[in-house]
């Protein structure tokens, strides 16, 4: 007999393996490797979380009780997969194009991003999911207890083991389900682990089946005879239940939060559905192939009264085949774990997005709401939700005592969750469906489900027997299990019939009677015609939106880098310079979709609404809604694109205009400067020439002096004209460089002697001759001009008592650098940036030219491929001339 210790060890080992697989898959996905992680095979296998412990153990139990009825649970999804493939494809595409995070998100998104609806669906899902989780915990515990009975040590305590199982599953779901926020970054780790688990459970069930057919019964034919001879050996299926359960399982297959999670949210590629359409039914077929043989053999071999739900375990155990029992235990264990993990993930997403986040947002002030890191809040909300959901399941299990047969709890949950179906299908295929309709339908169906199935099923404590017998207040037509006198039906059939049909009826009638909001209509059009236009018209007018506020909010939700990337891309798409795009409706639409991947559609809508404020539907949207034809929608989106284009063009024009104005102002200023520089010497010339002409009796000294002034001013004019011409030629790039070769020393020699010739003030020039032994290949005259300018500037402006200019040459970073540093007071800091501008003169001394010298130097150095800069902090005025190394040759 296998001891508990081995069992626990195997369990732990298996869980560690799962952790390993999930972790490795996450790592591989993050590294961009592992294409097979996104293969259709993995997708199909992950769909098989449909098969929970309920199907693993319960199917055999169900077969033992009521024959072939159990296949309906598998036939429903099979029919959906095979025949409703196009419908699923639509669901998946809508889910992906709207970046839906859960089934509640999908419903709320379809009906005008209504959070009320999302909360309803969430509550329904949690109510339906909790017993289901409890069921899984129960199955694990039951299977444990089978081994425990056989174990003499008696260490096993049921309550503790359930607790630890629940806690362990919660940790797993938290670790791998809430790592990344964006629902579009899929949970590769979890999905891969689930795929592995589905292989394990299929393998285990097949192994037990093969053991039973060939090991115990001795082949197929004896097996068949044995089946016919058994107590369930006759076709004995209630037609109502048969159809009901087939339908129910088909509905649940689409509506269950965990199925939605793997089928839509975790879907990587629509094309995978095509493979899953035949591969998943095949999986289901294999899962159910050996159910009847195991049930029959179990009924034969085991003593009467043993729990048929556990035949999968007890049959191999009774035959002494411990290892097979162990394997089947692992199979059941993995069915339970995978279901619980995915359900907890899906439910927690719903709870955090539709219940916690809206409450959290509401408790904050408007607009200033976005304080603190929303990202962490969301993740934390999800983690706590997972823990809370697991705790709920745990307490449900403890309270219900695990009494009812496995299969019936599962069906109750199915019936509850199926209430979403009318709203879902209606939303996908009927544009007339409205929020009110969905709300009314859901409430009606939900209420009926609670009243006719959930409460009566929970035993006498909650609903008294008299109510069940005679109806509330003695009103017989309201008897929970025979509404309106419809008696003689199986309770399940009864509930499904009434709740779903009234649900659908209420949904249709309320939809027809109510008028949808514009946003609802837009969303409706997008859902129903998802294949026609996946790019949708927007719902936002961004006139008041602040891009910066949006940016801040987005950063907090998506994280800084992805948010900036997204905004940058948007800005580029709009052709806007800078990092912030304009809040166009299209941009807001995309932003909302991006955010809804993290926090759900309704919350994202509310958050953007807080910033954008006011009306969420623009005139264009109303226009778009007015005529519902797809052409008009397209036409309006074309208009929108045109208007966006016009806005962009206008902005470009404005920019161009600003630039032109600036240039024109610069030109005006330049002309004013030139005029000033020309008129000033002319004023002196004119004034003194008139004085000399009109004044009698000027002394010889005065005459000479005034003639000198006229002469000097005439020279100044000439220089100015020369400089202007020089600069204009340089600026237009018409200059021809006259390349020559000489050493730096020669050029400097010539420049110093030219600059200092005839100067009144002595300027001492200090040079380091060895460093000047550099051969130059450049326009020597132009370079000389620069040097002369710098030297004569020092000569004119250096205000030291003994003016000294130090010229030194270095090799800095592959450039020949020549520094001219004098010992004066230098250029004031605020003027340093201006010295190279035209007509920029520093100080009051006007002895020099028109202030064009350094501007010319800068132009020359640009032509020569080097540059000239002012070096601050050198004690005096300091200029650095640099030439690229390419112009330098080996030292002589």
């Amino acid at each position: 007999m296998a001891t508990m210790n081995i069992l626990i060890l195997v369990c732990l080992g298996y869980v560690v393996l799962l952790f390993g697989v999930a972790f490795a898959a996450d790592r591989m996905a993050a590294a961009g490797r592992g294409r097979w992680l996104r293969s259709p095979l993995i997708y199909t296998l992950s769909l098989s979380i449909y098969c929970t412990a309920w199907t693993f153990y319960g199917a055999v139990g169900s077969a033992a009780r009521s024959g072939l009825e159990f296949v309906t649970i598998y036939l429903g999804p099979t029919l959906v997969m095979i025949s409703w493939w196009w419908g699923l494809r639509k669901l998946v595409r809508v889910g992906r194009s709207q970046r839906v995070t859960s089934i509640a998100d999908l419903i709320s998104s379809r009906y005008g991003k209504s959070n009320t609806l999302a909360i309803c669906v969430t509550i329904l899902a949690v109510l339906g999911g909790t017993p289901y989780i409890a069921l899984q915990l129960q199955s694990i515990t039951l299977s444990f207890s089978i081994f425990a009975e056989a174990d003499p040590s008696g260490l096993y305590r049921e309550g503790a083991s359930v607790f630890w199982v629940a806690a362990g599953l919660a940790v797993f779901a938290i670790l791998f389900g809430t790592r990344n926020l964006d629902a579009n970054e899929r949970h590769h780790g979890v999905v891969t682990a689930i795929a592995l688990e589905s292989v394990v459970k299929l393998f285990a069930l097949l192994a037990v089946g093969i053991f039973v057919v060939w090991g115990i019964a001795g082949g197929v034919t004896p097996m068949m005879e044995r089946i016919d001879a058994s107590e369930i050996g006759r076709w004995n299926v209630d037609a109502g239940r048969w159809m009901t359960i087939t339908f129910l399982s088909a509905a649940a297959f689409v509506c269950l939060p965990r199925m939605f999670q793997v089928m839509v949210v975790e879907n990587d590629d629509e094309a995978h559905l095509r493979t899953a359409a035949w591969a998943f039914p095949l999986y289901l077929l294999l899962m159910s192939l050996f159910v009847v043989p195991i049930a029959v053999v179990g009924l034969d071999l085991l003593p009467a009264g043993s729990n048929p739900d556990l035949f999968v375990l007890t049959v191999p155990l009774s035959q002494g085949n411990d290892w097979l029992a162990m394997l089947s235990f692992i199979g059941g264990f993995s069915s339970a774990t995978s279901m619980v993990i995915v359900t907890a993930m899906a439910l927690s997403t719903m709870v955090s997005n539709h219940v916690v986040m809206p409450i959290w947002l509401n408790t904050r002030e408007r607009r200033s709401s976005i304080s603190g890191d929303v990202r962490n809040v969301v993740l934390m909300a999800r983690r706590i939700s997972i823990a809370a959901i697991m705790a709920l399941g745990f307490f449900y299990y403890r309270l219900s005592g695990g009494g009812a047969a496995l299969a019936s709890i599962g069906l109750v949950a199915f019936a509850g969750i199926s209430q979403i179906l009318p709203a879902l299908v209606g939303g996908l295929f009927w544009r007339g469906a409205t929020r009110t309709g969905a709300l009314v339908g859901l409430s009606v169906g939900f209420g009926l489900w609670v009243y006719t199935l959930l409460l009566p099923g929970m035993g006498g404590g909650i609903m008294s027997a008299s109510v069940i017998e005679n109806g509330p207040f003695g009103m017989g037509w309201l008897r929970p299990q025979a509404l309106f006198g419809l008696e003689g039906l199986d309770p399940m059939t009864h509930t499904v019939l009434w709740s779903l049909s009234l649900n659908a009826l209420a949904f249709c009638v309320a939809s027809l009677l109510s008028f949808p909001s514009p946003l609802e209509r837009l969303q409706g059009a997008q859902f129903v015609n998802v294949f026609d236009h996946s790019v949708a018209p927007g719902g936002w007018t961004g006139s008041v939106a602040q891009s910066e506020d949006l940016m801040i909010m987005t950063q907090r939700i998506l994280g800084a880098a992805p948010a900036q990337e997204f905004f940058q891309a948007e800005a580029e798409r709009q052709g806007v310079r800078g990092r912030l795009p304009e809040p166009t409706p299209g941009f807001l639409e995309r932003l909302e979709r991006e955010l809804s991947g993290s926090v759900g559609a309704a919350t994202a809508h509310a958050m953007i609404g807080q910033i954008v404020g006011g009306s969420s539907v623009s005139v264009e949207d109303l226009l778009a809604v007015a005529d519902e034809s797809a052409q008009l929608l397209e036409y309006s989106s074309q208009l929108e694109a045109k208007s966006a284009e016009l806005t962009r063009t206008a902005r470009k024009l404005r920019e161009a205009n600003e630039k032109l104005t600036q240039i024109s102002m610069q030109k005006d200023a330049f002309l004013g400067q030139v005029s000033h520089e020309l008129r000033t010497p002319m004023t002196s010339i004119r004034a003194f020439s008139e004085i000399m002409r009109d004044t009698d009796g000027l002394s010889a000294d005065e005459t000479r002096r005034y003639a000198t002034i006229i002469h000097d001013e005439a020279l100044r004019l000439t220089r100015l004209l020369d400089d202007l011409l020089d600069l204009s030629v340089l600026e237009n790039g018409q200059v021809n460089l006259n390349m020559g070769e000489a050493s730096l020393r020669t050029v400097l020699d010539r420049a110093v002697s030219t600059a200092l010739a005839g100067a009144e003030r002595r300027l001492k020039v200090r040079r380091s001759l060895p460093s000047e032994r550099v051969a130059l290949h450049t326009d020597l005259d132009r370079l000389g001009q620069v040097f002369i300018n710098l030297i004569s500037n020092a000569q004119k402006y250096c205000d030291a008592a003994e003016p000294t200019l130090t010229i030194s040459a270095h090799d800095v970073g592959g450039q020949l650098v020549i520094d001219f540093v004098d010992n004066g007071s230098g250029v004031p800091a605020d003027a340093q940036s201006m010295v190279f501008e035209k007509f920029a003169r520093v100080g009051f001394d006007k002895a020099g030219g028109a202030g064009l010298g350094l501007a010319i130097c800068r132009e020359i150095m640009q032509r020569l491929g080097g540059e000239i800069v002012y070096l601050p902090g050198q004690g005096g005025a300091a200029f650095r001339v640099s030439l690229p190394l390419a112009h330098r040759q080996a030292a002589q």
Partner: protein
Amino acid sequence: MLPFLGAALVVIPLLWPRADVAGLGMPLSSAMLYIFISWAGMIGVSFLFGLAARRMVAREDASTEAAPWRP
């Protein structure tokens, strides 16, 4: 067409005589055989349909250059 075929195949068993009504109904083994064979048949048809759809899409892609929608 496939939905109707599937639904019909699934509903047929309901026409069989039930043990509690007719005394001796359809043997369970035959029922199993019927269900699993029709099931397998549906899978096969779906598989073929998938192949055909893929070929059709491939042809569409080739002719229209750009697929209408990409993830």
